[in-house]
């Protein structure tokens, strides 16, 4: 009897193990090492534009009047999500001096609250916790807490243009040194985003954004002003799958001089692609590839980073 129980237990363990392996194998990630900044990442909704029905109101003797209206999705009041990312980075510390590569895990837990919204305005408060662990570079491990307040305003009738202003407070701690706080920053961010359906009857979208962000950091030698453009494409071969490349050139001006840093200006260029499959409305699986080149006028500050990753994201929305 106990043998049978042992066999059942080992089958359960084996089954759970297989499920975990399958889960991890199927998982994907969004833009690997940028996840601590995921609070600044916005989702742009992709409206499916068609000819309006004519006539808008039909009258049926049995049903009555059916008046078609235009309904825009209302943001959910509460959203909770988690993203589990597994990736490889060839540059844990973002430096070309003594470059360290490692596999990595990043767990992200996010909750956001929309107290009230209008069709063209969404204020949002978001809290986020990130936990990064590197397989062969434990010195790079960090925990990160974020609080972001943002306001998104859609200012064109076709909903193609939006302006998002955000303040993000972020702190990073070292889990191996009694949660020693080694980095803090406040990001004052302004972003203009444009979304366009490229072909009328095809689910191919173009997204462009201009972003102006000031990072007030501690240590202060990381204070910087970012001027960034980003361009991405999203193609939906089926409704649950999106494929898209992106590129983001960015000019960065470091405003505080310090040891080894004098009037530092960087040109940062990131490019990559993302494939996301949403098999269920609460779950998405992604695979992505991100490559970054940072060219600095201060010798020793340039870096390259390549980070392919897989992640699984679960989201629950209320109201």
């Amino acid at each position, binding site marked *: 009897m106990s043998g049978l129980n042992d066999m059942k237990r080992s089958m359960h363990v084996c089954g759970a193990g297989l499920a975990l392996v399958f889960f991890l194998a199927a998982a994907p990630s969004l833009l690997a090492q940028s996840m601590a900044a995921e609070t600044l990442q916005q989702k742009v909704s992709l409206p499916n534009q068609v000819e309006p029905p004519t006539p808008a109101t039909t009258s049926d003797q049995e049903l*009555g009047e059916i008046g078609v209206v235009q309904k825009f999705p209302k943001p959910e009041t509460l959203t909770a999500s988690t993203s589990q990312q597994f990736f490889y980075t060839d540059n844990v510390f973002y430096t070309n001096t003594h470059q360290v590569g490692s596999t990595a895990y990043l767990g992200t837990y996010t909750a956001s609250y929309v107290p009230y919204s209008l069709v063209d305005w969404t204020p949002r408060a978001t809290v986020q916790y990130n936990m990064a662990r590197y397989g062969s570079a434990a010195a790079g491990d960090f925990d990160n807490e974020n609080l972001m307040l943002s306001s998104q305003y859609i200012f064109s009738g076709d909903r193609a243009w939006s302006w998002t202003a955000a303040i993000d407070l972020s702190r990073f701690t070292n889990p191996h040194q009694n949660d020693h706080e080694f980095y803090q920053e406040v990001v004052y961010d302004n972003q203009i985003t444009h979304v366009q359906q490229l072909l009328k009857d095809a689910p191919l979208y173009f997204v462009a954004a201009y972003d102006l962000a000031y990072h007030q950091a501690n240590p202060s030698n990381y204070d910087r002003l970012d001027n960034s453009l980003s361009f991405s494409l999203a193609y939906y071969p089926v409704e649950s799958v999106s494929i898209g490349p992106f590129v983001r050139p960015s000019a960065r001006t470091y405003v505080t001089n310090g040891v080894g840093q004098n009037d530092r200006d960087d040109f940062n260029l990131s490019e990559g692609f993302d494939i996301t499959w949403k098999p269920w409305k609460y779950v998405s699986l992604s695979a992505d590839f991100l490559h970054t080149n940072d060219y600095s006028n201060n010798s020793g500050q340039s870096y390259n980073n390549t980070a392919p990753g897989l992640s699984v994201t679960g989201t629950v929305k209320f109201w």
Partner: protein
Amino acid sequence: MKKPIFFPCLAILFLGIGGSFAADPAATVTEAVNQVNHGSSSSSETKPAPVGTHLQDGEYLKTGVKSRAELELANQDVTRLGANTIFNYSVANNEVDLQAGTILFSKPKDGKVMTIKTAAVTAAIVGTTGFLQLRGHGFVFGLIEGHAPVTIDGKNYNITAGEILEFTPGSKPQILAFDVPLFLKTSPLVTKFHHPLPNQRYVDQEVIDYNDLVARGFIQPPKVPFFLTDFNGEVPTVPIPAADSAGNAQNPPEPERHRRPIINNGGGT
């Protein structure tokens, strides 16, 4: 002298028990206007179905021109039939079969699933108020409150309150939002019946929510450009990296780096 009293009592008792063994009706007619008939699919005979008529499992209810009827099903669902409608309810399968015409249904939120079926569509109703009209081989399915998955040719569509799904054979089903208060004000299936719907309070709440969305601009009259509600794709915009500075800040100074074997091993420095 006592025996004659005993036997009638026994007879009444047996009659009562016999009555309780008779099959429960599948549905009861609660309103009937003009031509309303019922019959069995196994027989061509039809009988008038005035208010109070019990329909047995497998029987259909049929309305004529300018006629209407209301049925209370065994599961407390209330179904209203418009003119020229043929409707059948199976208790065994908890399934409504609409063969022609127009119905409005209101199923209490009891957690049990009822299926509404036609030749072209299957809808699973849990606790929902809505309508279905057959138009040749096509149909219009709409929900006033609640939500329901609708299956057409094996593909599922999730319909929520305030949405209609229109299907015409040969074209893709289209989901559109509709004016719920206007429908409630003008539909004979709502205005020409006397009993409240079992989900009336949810219908009332839906109207309140609808008006709130109108006030906040989420519901507007249709205009160009017009957007469909059945596609809600999202694309992430490129994020702004903040972790690079933090990651760089973690970068231990050179002497310290050499004291950390894990980095020496993993990074080969």
